C-alpha cells in the first residue's frame, strides 16, 4: 500500500511538473523586471512591462483590439454560413452527406501552410492582403470544421417530436424553427462559437502570411517579442492568450453536452 502511493506520487508529481513547470516559468517571466544568468529566480519583480503592454495606443492594445475584432468577425461569418449548412445536414435528406461533412474537415486535415502561402498570393492580387477582412476570411475557413460539425450535431440532437408538437399546435415552420429548434440547439451553437473564437484568437500561420505587414494580432506580437528576446512582453501576451483557452478547457463539458458530442461527425 505504502509502496503503491510512492510510485503513484512520483508519477503524478512528474506529470504535474511537466504540465505546470513551463506555465510557472512563464508566470515568473511575466512579473520579472530583471532576470538573467545565472540567477535561478528573477532578480527583481515588478509590473513595468505590464504598463508597457497595457499602455493605451501601445502595440499590444492595438494587437488585442485587432485580435478581438478578427475573432468576432470570424464567429459571425462562420455562424452565418454554418447555421444553414448544419440545419441542412442534420434535418434534410442529402446525397453524399458524409462526403460533405468530410469536405469541411479538409482545411484541418491537410497541412495548411502551403495553402496559406497561395491564399496570400491570391489575396495580394485582390488587395485583400494586410487587411482585417482578408484575415477573417482565412480564419473562417479554418473554423468551419467546428462550426459545421458542432451545429450539425446540435441540430441533430434536438428531439423531432418537440418540433412536430409545435407544428401540430399550429405553429408555422418558421416559428417552429425560431421558438423550438434554435433555442434547443443554442448550447451547442454557443460551444461552436467559442471554439471558432478561440481558434481565431490563437491562429498564427494564416495571419503571418495574409496579415503582414499591417495586421498585427496577439500571436504575431508574441512571436515578435520572443524573437526580439523580450521574454517579459512575450510572457504577458502568452498569458492574455492563455486565460480564455484554460477557461474553456475547464468548462468545456458544460457547453458540449454528451448527447451533442455523441452525434459529432455522424
Amino acid at each position, binding site marked *: 500500500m505504502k509502496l503503491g502511493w510512492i510510485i503513484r506520487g512520483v508519477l503524478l508529481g512528474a506529470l504535474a511538473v511537466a504540465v505546470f513547470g513551463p506555465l510557472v516559468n512563464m508566470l515568473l517571466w511575466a512579473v520579472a523586471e530583471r532576470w538573467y544568468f545565472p540567477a535561478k529566480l528573477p532578480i527583481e519583480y515588478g509590473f513595468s512591462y505590464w504598463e508597457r503592454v497595457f499602455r493605451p495606443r501601445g502595440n499590444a492594445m492595438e494587437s488585442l483590439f485587432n485580435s478581438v475584432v478578427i475573432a468576432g468577425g470570424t464567429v459571425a461569418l462562420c455562424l452565418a454560413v454554418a447555421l*444553414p449548412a448544419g440545419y441542412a445536414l442534420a434535418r434534410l435528406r442529402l446525397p453524399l452527406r458524409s462526403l460533405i461533412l468530410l469536405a469541411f474537415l479538409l482545411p484541418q486535415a491537410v497541412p495548411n501552410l502551403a495553402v496559406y502561402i497561395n491564399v496570400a498570393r491570391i489575396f495580394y492580387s485582390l488587395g485583400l492582403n494586410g487587411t482585417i477582412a482578408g484575415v477573417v476570411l482565412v480564419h473562417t475557413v479554418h473554423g468551419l470544421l467546428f462550426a459545421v460539425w458542432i451545429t450539425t450535431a446540435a441540430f441533430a440532437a434536438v428531439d423531432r417530436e418537440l418540433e412536430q408538437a409545435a407544428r401540430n399546435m399550429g405553429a408555422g415552420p418558421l416559428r417552429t424553427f425560431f421558438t423550438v429548434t434554435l433555442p434547443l440547439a443554442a448550447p451547442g451553437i454557443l460551444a461552436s462559437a467559442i471554439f471558432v473564437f478561440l481558434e481565431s484568437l490563437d491562429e498564427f500561420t494564416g495571419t503571418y502570411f495574409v496579415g503582414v505587414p499591417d495586421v498585427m494580432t496577439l500571436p504575431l506580437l508574441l512571436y515578435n517579442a520572443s524573437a526580439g528576446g523580450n521574454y517579459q512582453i512575450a510572457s504577458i501576451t502568452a498569458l492574455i492568450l492563455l486565460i480564455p483557452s484554460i477557461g474553456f478547457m475547464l468548462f468545456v463539458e458544460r457547453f458540449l453536452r454528451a448527447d451533442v458530442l455523441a452525434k459529432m461527425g455522424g
Partner: protein
Amino acid sequence: MSEPAAASRAPARDAGGAGTGLLLLAPALLMVTALFLYPLGYSLTGAFRGVDGAWTLANFTKSFELYSRDIGFTVAIIGLSTLLIAFFSIAIGGYLTLGENRTAVVILRWLYRWPLFIPFIVAGQLMRAFLARNGMLNNTLMAMGVLDPADAPSLLDWRGIVIAFVWKQTPFVALLVAGAMATLDRSTIEAARNLGAGRLRILIEIVVPQVRQTLVVGLVLSFVTMMSVLSVPLMINAQSPTMITVDMAFRINAYGDYGVANALGFLSCALTGAVAWIYLRHGIRERGRQ
C-alpha cells in the same frame, strides 16, 4: 448575414428536397472551395511549374538538394512525437479506465488536460523559456544537485520541438482515447480480471485493441497538425536542420520562391495524404457501422 435566408428556407424540412439542402449548404461549400480547395490546387500544381509557367520537376530537384536533411528531420521529429503521444495517451487513458485508486484517478483526470486548448504559439514560447540552457528545467535540476552546471544542456533543438509537440498534443489524443475506453463493455475486462490477468496485460490485450480506431484517428489528426505548425519550430529551433515548415516560410519571405515552397508543401501533403487515407478509411467504416 445569410441568417434571414436560413429562416425563410427552414420550412423546406417538410419538403425535404435535396435541392433546398444544397442551397442551404452552398455558402459554406463555396467558402471551402474558393478559400481552400482552389489555393490548394494552385499550390499542388505550382509545385510542378517553373518561374516561366512551364511544367518541370526542377522545384523538386532543388528542394531535395537544399532540404533533404530537413525533410528527413521533419519526418523523424513528427514520427517520434506521434509514438510518444500514443504511448502517453494509452498510459493516461488506461489508468483512468483501469486505475483502482479513486484519488489518483481524480488527480490524473484533473491534471492531464491543462495543455488541451493552449495555442501552439504559446506552447512554443513556454518551452523556449523552460528548456533553455538557463531555463527553469536546468535550474531546478541543478538546485536538486542532479545536474552539474558545466554540462547543462540547451534542449532547444529537435528535442525541444518533440517536447513541445508531445506536451501540447497528448491531452487531445488522451481525451479521445479515454472517452472511447470509458464506453467499453466492462464485462470482458472483469472476466479477464477474474481469470487473474494483470492490469497491464488487460490494457494491452483487451482495452487497446478495442479503442484502436479512436487512437488512430487522434494520432492522424495530431500528425497533420504537427505537419502544419510553423510557430513551434520557428520559436524553438529555426536553425538548420529544422522542419520544412520553416523552410517554406523562408523561401517565401527571403526569395519569393513559390516553386520550392510549393514543392515542399506538396511533399508534406503527400506524407499526410498517406496517413490521412488511413483516417478516411476508418471514418467511413465507422459511419457505415452506425
